């Protein structure tokens, strides 16, 4: 396993920029603009964007899309569960918004190495905002228990290109719903400045 110190923060911005591009693709299809990339050994190996509206499945967050893509490919290549776990333990995730509680739980289950996010998520965030699932010591069963399963935490860093991520949300809410039958307010054109 690598030491926590990483190559350089300019790489972080480069990866986050790619995640932002994914979020923009989501915005174009009228999805909440969240995007992510998964990086292994400096290489982007998967991308994902939010598809909750299209799928009518509110769990299809960007992280889940990218993870499913990876799992599908790795299994096609014949990797066994222990080999896949080994792969995930070398993966870093860059996502434009703090992973929600569900996604943070999933990242812990899969054993991601590190997570970088843009803006925080006060309502649903699972990496410090509402729960702290990235911190492995945070889950202490309330009732006495003999042997706990091995829980995994992951290093988590927020605030990378947060203003860009927030700007995308803002344009999402400002663009209105052009398909609504009786708009309560006009669809706004993007206000620059």
């Amino acid at each position, binding site marked *: 396993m690598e030491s926590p110190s990483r190559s350089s923060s300019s790489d972080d911005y480069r990866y986050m920029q790619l995640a932002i591009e994914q979020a923009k693709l989501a915005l174009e299809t009228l999805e909440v603009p969240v995007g992510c990339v998964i990086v292994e050994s400096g290489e982007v190996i998967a991308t994902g964007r939010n598809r909750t509206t299209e799928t*009518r*499945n509110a769990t299809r967050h960007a992280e889940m899309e990218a*993870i499913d893509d990876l799992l599908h490919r790795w299994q096609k290549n014949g990797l066994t569960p*222990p080999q*896949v776990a080994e792969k995930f333990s070398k993966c870093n995730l860059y996502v434009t918004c703090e992973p929600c509680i569900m996604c943070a*739980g999933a990242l812990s*289950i899969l054993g991601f190495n590190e997570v970088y996010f843009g803006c925080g998520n006060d309502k649903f965030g699972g990496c410090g905002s509402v729960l702290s699932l990235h911190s492995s010591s945070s*889950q202490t069963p309330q009732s006495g228990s003999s042997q706990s399963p091995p829980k995994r935490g992951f290093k988590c860093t927020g605030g990378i290109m947060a203003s860009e991520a927030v700007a995308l949300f803002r344009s999402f809410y400002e663009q209105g719903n052009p398909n609504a039958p009786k708009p309560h307010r006009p669809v706004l054109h993007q206000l620059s400045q």
Partner: protein
Amino acid sequence: MEGVNTWDIVHVPSKPRFPPDNQPTVNVFASAIDPKFANSIVRRLNQIAPLENLRHVKRVRKERLEGGKFQLSVILCLARDGEDHLKTIPADMLELTSSYQLSAFITKVCGFPASSKEEWEEQCKLWPTSYHPPTYNIDGITGFSEEDAQSVCSFTRFALQLAAISGVAQVHNAAVIVDPSVKQVIASACDDVFYGQTLTEKTNSHNSCHEQISHHHIDLNGAATQTAPCSNGKPNELKHHYGSVSCLHPWQWSKQQAYTNSCYWHPLRHAAIAAIEYSAARDRQLYPGPAQDIDGFSEMEQVQSSLEDSPLKRQKTAKDKDDARHEEDDNDRTLKLPRPYLCTGYDIYLVWEPCVMCAMALVHQRVRRIFFVFPNTHAGALGSVHRLQGEESLNHHYAVFRVMVPEESLAIVK
């Protein structure tokens, strides 16, 4: 876990529940006061020592003394733990006590608001508190009608039986999504993390969708009488048999070797996640049509929604952009009834309490009620380790119930 003889449906509240006569308490300083100074003392106390985390506790207590007289007492401030409590009274409080010649004593008050009338009555024996019954009311929190209880038992049996069928080699969790208004199964699934033997309904969502829809015709009352392998299920005592229940051991997938090369597996396909996917597939199939019809609603899930749950409140308080947008969608929905919006109004039945990933997925998908049979002490997120139904920041809250199943009905599991 105690074996039970009869079916029972127990609400799992949003706050931990304590025995009514053994609720957590905190120590406070209090003092008897002269009624004619009550107003000015309380006003001053609210300035120098507001009871921030004890809003349910009444500041003043009125006791009837022998002979029909009344005695007023007031809470001064929190008492910190220590050898000599009286030395921990802050300076401005001492000033107040000396100017009104109060003599402080230490007493106990209940630390959390009462969640039932019974709790409240016990609390008031220590020191009076106020009680606000829950403002929301999801069917069942205040009890079930005979008919509804029957229906809950039937669907619970169905979930138990599904888990039994899928668990030919290993025990799995099962999830059944139900529309309670028509008592209809919308979708069902078992843990899909590893499935060597049951490859039906897994390969693509269209097939699985047909499968799920056919479940509508299952005779729920008959379902439980079908034969299935037997055990005298006490999960806590037989824990080692349950290593394959995904929500109980979500981190253990990596230790498994795939059974065969052709076997498909997915570490995150716990029963609830799979059931949500089947339900979404059903929705897409039964209500095709452009995604825009529901545009802008589920997406609010992920971030920034500043809404309260009730559509009524939503309309009344619509001020900012988000609210306005939701309002449009509400109108959109009413025009196109009965198209479902995610799992709004639906119930889900699970054999085991879900892990945090599944519990949050059920928040996102707007499930109305969750029923589970066995608690999940190491990883459960509905009261065991986390308690998502009590996380106030979430934009949706379901009601959670544990179904107590009698021994003889548990015998169908495994």
